[in-house]
């Protein structure tokens, strides 16, 4: 029984913003299926009552004094920009939306 379908792979590709060819989708489905099958063995490990280990350091978050230091100049900030206009980064038109929405350009 497969653990992941080609349709799920296409959905994930959208979620991760990756354009995959149909060959890539097919290959990815096989690869991810094998890997998910392998990691499934984790289920047999009893982890009840075990604290998740999110960090390999035993200390708390250090804090920084609220002081400014020199910013990048506008040119430095934009030097690597693939598209620049005056002092802005340029992107294809964003349809206004709430944070979190990937809005598609109006086709009209």
């Amino acid at each position, binding site marked *: 029984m497969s653990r992941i379908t080609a349709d799920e792979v296409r959905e994930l*590709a959208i979620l991760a913003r990756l354009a995959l060819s149909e060959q890539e989708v097919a290959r*990815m489905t096989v690869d991810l299926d094998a890997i998910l099958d392998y990691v499934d063995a*984790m289920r047999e490990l009893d982890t009840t009552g075990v604290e998740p280990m999110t960090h390999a350091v035993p200390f708390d978050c250090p804090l920084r004094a609220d002081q400014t230091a020199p910013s990048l100049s506008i040119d430095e900030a934009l030097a*690597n*920009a693939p598209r620049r206009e005056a002092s802005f980064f340029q992107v294809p038109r964003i349809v206004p939306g709430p944070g979190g929405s990937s809005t598609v350009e109006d086709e009209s």
Partner: protein
Amino acid sequence: MIDARGASLVSIVDGVRAGAFSAREVTEQFLDRVARLDGALGCFLKIDDTGARRRADAVDAARKAGRDPGPLAGAPIGIKDIFCMRGVETTCASKILRGFVPPYESTVTARLEAAGAVALGKLNMDEFAMGSSTENSSVKPTRNPWSHAHVPGGSSGGSAAAVAASLCAGATGTDTGGSIRQPAALCGVVGMKPTYGRVSRYGVIAFASSLDHPGPFGRTVEDAAALLEVMSGVDPLDATSIPAPVGAYRQAARAGREGQTPLAGVRLGVPTEYFQPGMDPEIETAVRAALDELALAGAKIVPVSLPHTKYAIATYYLICTAEASSNLARYDGVRYGLRAAEVRSLEELYTKTRGEGFGTEPKRRIMLGAYVLRAGYYEAYYGKALRARRKIADDFSAAFASCDAIVTPTSPVPAFKFGERIGDPLQMYLADILTVAPNLAGVPALSQPCGFTKSGLPIGLQIIGPALGEEICFRVGGAYESRTDWHTRFAPETA
């Protein structure tokens, strides 16, 4: 003048500091070797001769002016192309970062430069540090100096090969699941993954944030120790860097060389789980012989168990892919790097740029990572892995109650041929079995040469210490090295 092919990093530094030769002379020698020999090997992505000469001249000027030229004065080193260097193209061997020139410097390279080291250029790697053979570089493969038909290992393949071929006397790498130790083993050099947080990650392009460890490569144990001493220390720019004082690593390495039984009183644990059937028999033989040698040096060999080893690969790949899918979300063609041509919408900007810019392995890991973090799947996969991680870390803590260091082989196989494993990702992942657990637990681990296969491929010995226990790793490593001569053998040179 030094013999570049044989000189240890430490001997070069001693010579420069003593005035026996100049940093510039050393630099020219190594740049010459790179020019002659790297064409066949493909270690370097970028050779920064102008910058190297400038740095060497600065060291010489300091010395002439009576100032201390630094503890690494004149040391010719290579920098894995995952460390950002101000004004130098840094690509992580990925198309998506072609042309990216950081306006900032990684803490590690800043510290190395301040110590007088001379960076010769940027070294090849698996794209975004994802891989075990450097075959995933989007630019070119790197060849193993011991056999050009074989891989150097990965992801820090360029670093390991460059040191093995004496194209530089030391190098930096990163180790997320074995990416320093495994190529060190496959190339017959020393590679060290320190304790997590020992070395700052600021300016090190992130693959898996809680698993990435920057560290050194050297020909000898003391060379690696010398580099690590300078690289280590708390950094206000990295909230996960450890405030503990930096140990005397060179001294520990030298202590291992003293006397007949330098390891008297040291207990070395040998975990049964790391000697599984299916392991290459030549590797097992070499490692067992190494254990015998360590016993002669005074160490007591004790059996230990790391019972959760069998879950280490699954745990590792669940955590690292989740973190990787997150860390690679920023590559979108907006602020830096590649932007796909002919983009008709914002959506296409993202999908085409990322589709074209990432190679197959990063895409695979991004997809897997997105999958395991999905709402509804989190607890079953990522949440589960975080708990398994704690059990793996606890295994080490428990083992260190009965031993001072743990000794294992580094890689279950020697260097493999190009194309042999790249088609089967799961097979590639499984070869990390001996290295991933210390990344999960955050404990330090060193790999050093301990022999060769009959076909002349290097074999690596791994020494794992408790958290902040780099000294014991260097001491044991130094002791083993002083009683063997693997580190004096050189890869054949093709002119």
